[in-house]
């Protein structure tokens, strides 16, 4: 995408220059690497394990990670502004606890789900206000929110509460057939619907453009008269809302609430966003990239499951390693630019 590449005029080197320009562009480079990585992992999996090419394997990637897609969407908004949200995993756990305990108390799901979304959005609002108006670093404000949410989980119950509500079970067990022997769950449709909404909001609304502008340079945003304060607070509301929604999807997925569930999910969400090509400093990145990031993480999990020799604890180690690789890649790309 840069015109500064020196070429000798021949079409081959011009094309090579264009590829290099594309790859070293902080906007498209990382996400392209991720896409190549994902395809490579699939080829490796297909050549090593039988049954890996079954379309249902891909569908399962979406089914097992629909909650993570939702979390990653919220996290993308936050990281695009240059912030971070460490509370998503705990808020997700809190949502499953609220859902499970209120269902046990006999509340109707039609009330519980909106209630959860309102509570988590308000928590996000509180965090956003702390960050913007009291100038507390995002990580410390969201760390406090993380511990608050975990603490509230314990307050609700120390033991696992299972969900027996017919509506939740129906939503958990419904399979929507796409083709013979290929099906997805309602959660997948919800998650993908949210992705579409997020793409539209980020690219075609004033709010979305302000999000990118804050990540590029907050001071310039203020000077341009953009609603920086409102937007900065709103991204945490979006993240809180997404965490709540992810919690609802997670409770469909596990049909239970447990205080220590989803520990470390914040790393998964951050990793998905970073691997998906969003710059940690903010300003560059796509929601669809984050979805690719989630698929990469899901594929790692699937490969480990198919392998059978590696224990599931390797997953967190692999994710940490991959996150590191992409952060270093970002460093290299941005260092070249400036």
């Amino acid at each position, binding site marked *: 995408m840069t015109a500064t590449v020196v070429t000798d005029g021949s079409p081959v080197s011009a094309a090579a220059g264009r590829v290099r320009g594309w790859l070293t562009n902080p906007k498209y480079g990382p996400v392209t690497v991720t896409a190549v990585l994902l395809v490579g992992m699939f080829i490796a999996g297909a050549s090593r394990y039988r049954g890996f090419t079954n379309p249902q394997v891909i569908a399962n990637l979406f089914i097992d990670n629909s909650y993570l897609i939702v979390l990653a969407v919220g996290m993308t908004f936050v990281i695009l502004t240059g912030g*971070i949200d*460490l509370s998503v995993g705990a808020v997700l756990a809190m949502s499953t606890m609220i859902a499970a305990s209120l269902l046990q108390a006999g509340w109707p799901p039609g009330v519980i789900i909106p209630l959860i979304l309102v509570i988590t959005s308000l928590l996000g609002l509180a965090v956003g206000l*702390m960050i913007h*108006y*009291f*100038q*507390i*670093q995002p*990580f*410390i*404000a969201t*760390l*406090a*929110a993380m*511990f*608050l949410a*975990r*603490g*509230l989980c*314990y*307050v609700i119950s*120390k033991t696992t509460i299972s969900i027996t509500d017919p509506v939740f079970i129906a939503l958990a067990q419904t399979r929507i057939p796409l083709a013979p022997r290929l099906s997805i769950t309602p959660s997948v449709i919800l998650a993908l619907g949210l992705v579409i909404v997020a793409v539209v909001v980020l690219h075609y609304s004033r709010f979305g453009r302000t999000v990118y502008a804050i990540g590029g340079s907050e001071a310039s945003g203020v000077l341009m008269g953009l609603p920086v304060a409102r937007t900065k607070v709103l991204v945490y509301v979006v993240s809180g809302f997404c965490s709540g929604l992810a919690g609802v999807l997670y409770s469909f997925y596990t049909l239970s609430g447990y205080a*220590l569930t989803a*520990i*470390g999910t*914040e*790393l998964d969400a*951050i990793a998905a966003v970073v691997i998906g090509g969003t710059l*940690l400093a903010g300003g560059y990145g796509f929601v669809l990239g984050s979805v690719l990031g989630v698929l990469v993480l899901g594929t790692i999990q699937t490969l480990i499951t198919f392998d059978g020799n590696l*224990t599931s*604890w*390797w*997953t*967190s*180690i692999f*994710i*940490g*390693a991959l*996150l*590191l690789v992409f*952060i*270093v890649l970002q*460093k290299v790309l941005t260092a070249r630019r400036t």
Partner: protein
Amino acid sequence: MNVNRLMAHRLFWPVVMLVVLLGINLIAFPGFFSVQVRNGHLFGSLIDILRNGSPTLMIAVGMTLVIATRGIDLSVGAVCAISGAVACSIILGSPDPGNPGTVAVAVVVSLLISLVLGLWNGFLVAVVGIQPIIATLILMTAGRGVAMLITEGQILTVNSPPFKAIGSGFFLGLPIAVLIAAVIFVFAVVITRRTALGLMIEAVGINPEASRLAGVRARGLLITVYVFTAVCAAIAGLVLTSNQTAADANNTGLFIELDAILAVVIGGTSLAGGRYSLFGTLIGALVIQTLVTTVYTVGIPPIVTMVFKAAVVTVVCLLQSPRTTQLIESARRRNARRRGRAVTA
């Protein structure tokens, strides 16, 4: 000493908090302050506070220095889990678990591993230049996976008297854990106040660029600080594991990073880096442990403690924020103006 000057002292509010908490305990439980000697050991609620608070204090000492350099270390809990897992698996794997030599080997190996983990954090922060939260977040989650690999997903229970002594033994009438924490604390105070190290840490925290121009080698300094914190965390992990006589990769040191950060923040060290106070951290750690004890003595369900701690961290951060200072300042000025007008009228 003048009351105003006393109030302006940075340790004033933390000490007040500690005194109030101790007072609540004394009201709820009159025998709270009694310390007895039994079998040549000191016993009592105050000794329990010191002993149970010692792992937090050990980590908080390292965390203070990290925060003073504008950093943060979220991986301390995972480092606790790894060191506990390493020590327990070595002791379990040896033919003679009760031998002090075996325990010494286990301790040394786990401390060496924590050294490597600290170097890793320091490398990511100082050499690669990743933000400290993200850099240490990697080890925070991947570290639990590593601990799981070491324990093979099991809770390793060890039966080794010398190892048990680390967490629950006594020396000269005092709990060994308290003595270890005291040694770490004094070491940190001496090395930062008797050498230029403390000054350089503050310099890097206040203005990295200016300190670089002044010739401070920030890179080595940052790595040292992260290594020190990881070693502190490993020692704390050994104490915790020894106390439970078991290594649990999932739960050893879980959420201890919050306690450590909280202790530092209560002690008056700003999260923005720069000036720090190790004595403040000491009082902060005591405040936290007393808070936990208070929750027990007053009869509040212990599970609520975490919500309390989160609330305290939030309130302290809000009080520290420049915005709050501004609001208080403008309110005071408005008051003064009103008073001034009253006088002239």
